[in-house]
């Protein structure tokens, strides 16, 4: 079937198998490989992207379900002139990533988190990111990164 999705501001329209997952559509059809796959049970959040501004796990949706909608992946956060999104900057500054595999999903989930709660406490960040797993960082610096990106001071 033909699926047309606006990905990071550009429409991608391709013929794909009906059962194509959104994450595979993004990675293979749209050629955007930042979005990762870390599980097969909707548990890890490595595949998190924004669908019309709301975070979704792209491994759990068919590409067809996103037909006609707008998707933002981590690649879409960087401005055309290379300027980083505050969350991208904060993840680097606060060392909120190590191997980087969870990072695209973690950053997209954080965009959505800050959208709903612009000044979260550390505990609110922890609770908000419960569906995004990281094996490397112990989460401490991920929490700091989100707090920093929200314009609040990081005190630990």
């Amino acid at each position: 079937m033909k699926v047309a999705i606006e990905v990071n501001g550009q429409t991608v329209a391709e013929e794909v198998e009906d059962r194509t997952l959104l994450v595979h559509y993004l990675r293979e059809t749209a050629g955007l490989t930042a979005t990762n796959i870390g599980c097969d049970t909707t548990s890890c959040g490595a595949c998190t992207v924004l669908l019309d501004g709301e975070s979704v796990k792209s491994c759990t949706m068919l590409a067809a379900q996103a037909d006609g909608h707008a998707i933002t992946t981590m690649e879409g956060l960087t401005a055309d002139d290379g300027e980083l999104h505050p969350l991208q900057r904060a993840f680097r500054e606060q060392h909120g990533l190590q191997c980087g595999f969870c990072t695209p999903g973690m950053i997209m989930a954080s965009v959505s988190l800050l959208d709903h709660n612009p000044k979260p406490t550390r505990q609110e960040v922890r609770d908000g990111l419960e569906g995004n797993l990281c094996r490397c960082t112990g989460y401490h610096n991920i929490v700091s990164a989100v707090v920093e990106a929200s314009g609040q001071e990081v005190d630990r």
Partner: protein
Amino acid sequence: MSIAGTRVVRVEDQKLITTGGTYVEDLRGDALTGAVHAMFVRSPIAHARITSIDTSEALAAPGVIAVYTAADIDLPPAPVDPVTQSWLADGVVRYVGEAVALVLAEQRYQLADAAELIDIDYDPLEPVSSIDAALADETLLFPEHGSNVMQVNGKEFDEKTFDDCEVVVTRTIVNQRVAPVPLEVRGAACTWGDDGRLMVWLSTQNAQIARTVVAAGLGVGEESVRIVTPDVGGGFGAKVGADPEVVALGWAARHSGRAIRWTETRSENLTSMTHGRAQQNTITIGGRRDGTVLAFRLEVVQDTGAYPRLPFLPILTELMASGVYHFPRVETASRAVATNTAPISAYRGAGRPEATAAVERAMDLFAAEIGMDPGEVRKANFIAPEEFPYQTPTGASYDTGDYATALDRVLEAGGYADLRAEQARRRASGDPVALGLGISSYVEVTAGDDSGGEGGRVDINPDGSVTAYTGSSPHGQGLGTSLAMLLSDQLGIPLDKIAVRHGDTDEVPKGIGTFASRSLQMGGSAMRLAADQVIARARELAANMLEASPDDLELNVDQGVWQVRGAPASSTVTWAQLAERAGEGELSADEWYDEGAPTFPFGAHLAVVEVDTLTGKVELRRLIAVDDAGPVVNPLAFRGQRHGGLGQGAAQALLEVMNYDPDGNPTTATLADYSFISATELPDFELVNMETPTTRNLLGVKGIGEAATIGSTPAVHNAVVDAVAHLGVRHIDMPTTPVRVWQALGDARKAEAK
């Protein structure tokens, strides 16, 4: 001014936060255009004879290129001493998840369809699903070996060891099996070139060792294999070298004449990537009522899983058995037994966390028995600072340490006395939410492997920039930044002009890789040697150009120029000029560092938990840590390694376990079932600094990759038991889940009622 020791954001990150890393699955190069997809069909049964495999229907399915089984693969099996392992199960399957067939198809989604059509008949055998069942030796995994015991180490115990002790405590403690779960699963891509060489892109912790494994498996020379390590999404020990799947893929690529891509699923990863820990340890500790321990005994039974992959794991546990303590008598022994479960291999700490868990639980059990504060008991038995280097009874040579100071600092930072007072208040008032404090004092060994050194190469490019090559293989640790910082200090060349490369066996033919927390001490020292050589060569060249004696030349590291000592600042030469003069590729040094000896990082952790005594639910409230690994190159990365270690270590104490039922079926085979710790279950970590250098390598550093994992597990574990100690509980095996805690409380109540 030196940048080592200052907080530097990582050079690795720009890519990782914009377009994302390039992991194996992300490779889009020409060599893989048109590559077929691979999938392993795995055993759904723990122990069985394979009576028949019919692949005909699968072969006829759309897009299927080939279906291979053991009958097709004409390679001798891999030696896994004292037995062997076929690349695909040959006649018998020995664990759920063992690869039985390999399917190649044009498209990814065709694989699962085809796999369904493969008809495999199994004739079930009795499963050996636990250590006890293995020791019974009734059903054997390898009848030709004659026993499930794969390895035995240690001497007979002396009956009199505990004779002079006023108090003796003994207990068997389970160090449960956990799954490493790097967030990136295993993956590889491979293709045979027209030059007859196999090219493999592999998610691994060491390309060079992977090359050795793959070449040996395929029966070709190492020069016929090139391994390239793209970005790697975590390894934690489980991605050391190359798993048998990679050899099967290399063979299949040759046989089919096609380039192949393989990525496992998470469920496959949980059942068929190696697991870690899996020990059953019996400790006996004896001493005087004043807190002095006189004797300690550790008896290890290591579950190896179905194939013994890492024989030295229990040996390392024995080596580190007595921890930070000056015990007059120490006895250890180990046995390793095969079970019908996934093979056990390295997992963050690999043998040392098990030793620390055993001795730190033992110290708490001893303290409880004599009614002394666990901190005081530890202090009464520490190896004193003036005793270093300290030779342990088990054969380790500790380099440097100050264990009492580490403990004092962590107790001070945590406010230990106040916490104990708060605990007493809650107990007195009958508060159902109990407070628990857990201490662990630890020492571990880094670069304890016997792998023969590490390589480093430094090239000064004609534009004055540096390309450095390391045999280490960072995959999240930020070693690229740390090495660049060291080089920048040494050469006076700014960070942004230094590129550190690794992981391509054609570029770095010799290397050992990243595991055993060895990379900074070994890889960093190798880089230091190479830079020293480059500086020596540059001195000659600069002397020549400035018409001075080499002895009068100095490298001004602030400006990155060579100058004659005392001469006007105008007469200098730059690195670019030197590289130009030396000629293309000439200002370069390639060194191998093999002088280094193992080092012994140490520390102390304090965990604070709350346990709801009505439900058994545990909340980790605080985790305070001293982790001393000598001088710190990049505090940002150093703290990050500690955070990650603390999280993973706490997870083992609180939540994680890879479970099998009595039939050998894994019951935690997806991330929905396996209790991977999330952000909500962890507190902010409180880090306390301490730096005690070693003399055993050129940089004075020790490893930090695993230290915090090793310290945190027993601290959190001890805290949970401490929380309910007043209710009569002495021990709860990990993970201390609500059910386990609740059961322990019930058992204690029943025992009291009797």
